């Protein structure tokens, strides 16, 4: 019987190295959303799956100590409010809600297409934090008659 929670030490060592690469891949998909398939939703789910990977390998008490779950849970409605703020800024600058008011740039550059890059980042963070909070809550839930895990 194992004394410590989580998987074997091989899985833990591999996860320590590879979870940063998965988060980097998620950030790449979010930032290149206007040039190649992907965008905010796909990148957000990849980041949430990276955190889920750490939670499965190390046990959820370690994750509760490693991350500040309260802050990550509050980040999700903050990103929703930022989306609304970008929309209202569109009224102030260009006269219609959610108008594309930033500089459009040249085609195929990384910093181009104005509003779309900013909105992709906002949606990516929101989806990642929301989905990770749901999975963390499902892992934390205990039955009151003494369930397992």
């Amino acid at each position, binding site marked *: 019987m194992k004394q410590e929670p989580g998987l074997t030490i091989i899985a833990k060592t591999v996860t320590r190295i590879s979870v940063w690469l998965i988060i980097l891949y998620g950030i790449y998909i979010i930032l290149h959303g206007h040039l190649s*398939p992907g*965008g905010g939703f*796909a990148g957000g789910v990849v980041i949430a799956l990276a955190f889920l990977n750490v939670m499965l390998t190390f046990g959820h008490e370690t994750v509760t100590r490693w991350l500040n779950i309260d802050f990550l849970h509050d980040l999700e409605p903050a990103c929703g409010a930022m989306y609304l703020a970008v929309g209202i800024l569109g009224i102030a600058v260009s006269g219609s809600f959610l108008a594309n008011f930033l500089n459009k740039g040249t*085609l195929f550059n990384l910093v181009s297409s104005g509003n779309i890059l900013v909105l992709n980042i906002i*949606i990516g963070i929101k989806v990642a934090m929301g989905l990770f*909070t*749901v999975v963390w809550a499902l892992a934390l839930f205990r039955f009151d008659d003494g369930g397992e895990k």
Partner: protein
Amino acid sequence: MPVETWLIFILSFMLIGSVAALEMKDLLSAIIAIGVVGLGVSMAFLLLQAPDLAIVQFLFEIFSVVIMVRAFIKRDYHHQTTPSNQIGKTILVIAALGAIFIFSINVFKALPPFGEPLMTTAQYYLDNCAKETGAANIVSSIVLDYRGYDTLGEVTVLFGAILGALTILRIKPGAKPDEEEKS
């Protein structure tokens, strides 16, 4: 080989998988079968030239399977047996769904044939996307620029669903781990 042959193959595979997912007695096999059906949908999206959707469908479906397996595995699960008065309801439902299917054949004959969409609005998006928005991914520019208001609605729905799930489980992320709620 034309696209339709591959699509008919994938769709029949998905039909068999979904019937198996609903009828199997073992719970873990049913959840794995629904996972395989989701992968079939992702492959069909790739064949229909929608790589954006294939990525999103694949990742979200993995997440759904992880949530379902976490919640339902290793519980005290009593297999249900169908009592005899369930047979009448099953036959009635199958007969009604069969009638709906036969009436729908005429409806699908009236649509444009497969492979020739009308594209009256979409032609404007395809022609003017590069100069009006500056993005190379046309689906991203429709989702976030031309139809950004729908994405605001979807962000709200996702927020509401996640908050609802947290409220039902009665977990507050700010509380300490040793002060859990006893119901």
